[in-house]
């Protein structure tokens, strides 16, 4: 019995190891393939900059941009800017999500509220982010409150939309099953509606975070003294394109890292789902 179970164990494990090796090789190959064009572009850009094919005051070389980031990091100024921006995005993301969660749940669950509130919310959604800037400055000044509010506005809409569509998209048959089991409204909400709308909510969170990073640039343009958006404006106003590109690069990297963090949370939260992505 013992020997038999051992051989079974080996039979199961061997293909797994092979599959893992195959998968990691494929992953490395994907990384290599994905890196070819960016690498060619970077080398071409660097060479073109060095031989004077590109004007340095318009587009500095990648090495100059990387040096700028390293120098700011070494001087200690970079971390203050990154920290400030992260705090603003974090606060705006939190407030926007809370507001979307409350309003989205009400609108999604109660038809009356949908008819009452949704048209107005949809109308507000079409207002561009920069259109809010003069009003927010007027109402809240140039301090943190106006910046965080602007980011919260950006985060709110995608999260709200996904919560509403998530709740409204819950399978009717699941609700019927809940009724058969004699679930109360609270139990139906907790055991059926929330888990069923969770995938949609998490997608909304990721979209909201993406917009949060877009809105923080608009927010930090309005009278900041710190932050990556401020750094971008400093670069613009002191004719330092390397600083502008360095800021853009930092936005891209930090934005990607925060998105990856949310993606991991999403993966862990939805591990129970019998979906295609969980089978891969």
């Amino acid at each position: 019995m013992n020997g038999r179970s051992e051989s079974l164990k080996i039979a199961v494990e061997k293909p797994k190891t092979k599959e893992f090796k195959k998968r990691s090789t494929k992953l490395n190959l994907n990384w290599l393939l994905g890196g070819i064009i960016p690498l060619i572009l970077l080398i071409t850009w660097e060479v073109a900059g060095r031989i004077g094919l590109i004007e340095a005051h318009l587009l500095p070389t990648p090495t100059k941009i990387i040096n700028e980031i390293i120098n700011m990091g070494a001087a200690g100024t970079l971390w203050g800017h990154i920290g400030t921006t992260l705090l603003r995005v974090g606060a705006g993301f939190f407030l926007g999500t809370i507001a979307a969660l409350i309003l989205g749940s009400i609108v999604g669950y109660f038809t009356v509220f949908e008819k009452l509130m949704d048209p107005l919310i949809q109308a507000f959604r079409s207002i561009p982010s920069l259109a809010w800037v003069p009003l927010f400055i007027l109402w809240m000044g140039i301090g943190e409150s106006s910046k965080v509010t602007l980011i919260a506005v950006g985060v709110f809409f995608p999260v709200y939309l996904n919560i509403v569509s998530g709740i409204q998209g819950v399978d009717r048959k699941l609700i019927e099953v809940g009724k058969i089991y004699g679930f109360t409204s609270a139990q139906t909400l907790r055991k059926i509606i929330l888990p069923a709308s969770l995938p949609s909510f998490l997608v909304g969170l990721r979209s909201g975070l993406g917009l949060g990073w877009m809105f923080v640039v608009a927010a930090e343009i309005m009278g900041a003294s710190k932050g990556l958006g401020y750094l971008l404006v400093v670069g613009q106003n002191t004719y330092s394109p390397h600083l502008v590109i360095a800021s853009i690069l930092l936005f891209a990297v930090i934005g990607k890292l925060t998105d990856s963090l949310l993606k991991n949370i999403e993966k862990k939260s939805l591990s129970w789902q019998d979906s295609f992505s969980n089978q891969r």
Partner: protein
Amino acid sequence: MKSSFTRFFILLLALFTITGCSSNASGANGKPKKIILDYAYYSPTSLILKEKGFAEDLFKKEGIEVEFVLSQGSNKALEFLNSKSVDFGSSAGAAALLAKAKGSPIQTVYIFSKPEWTALVSKDSSINSVEDLKGKKVAATLGTDPYIFLLRALEDKGLSAKDVEIINLQHADGAAALLSGEVVAWAGLDPHMARVEKEAGANLFFRNPDFNTYGTLNVRTEFAEKYPEYVTKVIEAYEKARQWAIDHPEETAEILAKEAQIDIEVAKIQIGRNDFSTSKPGDEQIAAITAAGDVLKNEGLVEGNADIEKIVRDLINSSYFK
């Protein structure tokens, strides 16, 4: 595979070549089809030029179109020059130096006025000196003369930019932030400064005319090298406007009031703070801009190994004067 890579590189090279190309279309016989000038509320001469059509009159017979673009500050004017959006841009001398030190291909060819267009402004009675600003919020527009004026004022009193919190706001927004009490001081610029002084009783608590660098007209080097005689002609048009400003101070104030949408009394204050007697850049301007350059170097806005005197010499070019 090989041919597709070749095509890819040719495409890249084409893109780089396009990046380096000028936006100014050449007409026949080596003359531009269009000359793009900026105008600014801090440059009354440019407003007269636009209002009176001196440039259009000069170039009409040659079939050259003249276009005007508004600059909200030296930073914007120099940005427009850098991106080839304008051929001539109005800025402060120190701001032009900062751009030149960062590699902007520009030349200062004309002085539109010697202004006292900036000072440190407060509305709070507790702020009466530069020393009172320590640890406080001050509004300024990065890359402009008021910003450089603020740095010089701080340095003059043994302080630096690190001793205050500089809030970057465009000039008009800086004035609004001062009035709403969100900043205790503002490195002001006319006409906004004259307006808050006249209408809101703001206090110009630190003034130093020598810390104001001259109002300079800058040209893109590429344009100047390609069409030197047209740089001379633009200067000729500016000279007409400058002379008109000297002869008609009242009407100049009216033009400024109309363009900037400010009260006539405010416009008169600004005009009174402008000296139109100098137009050819020379030693005086070189000295003033070099002094500002040293402050920019100390603050790390210009690289430590930069030769300020050489940069200023490369920047100022009075050879286009007749």
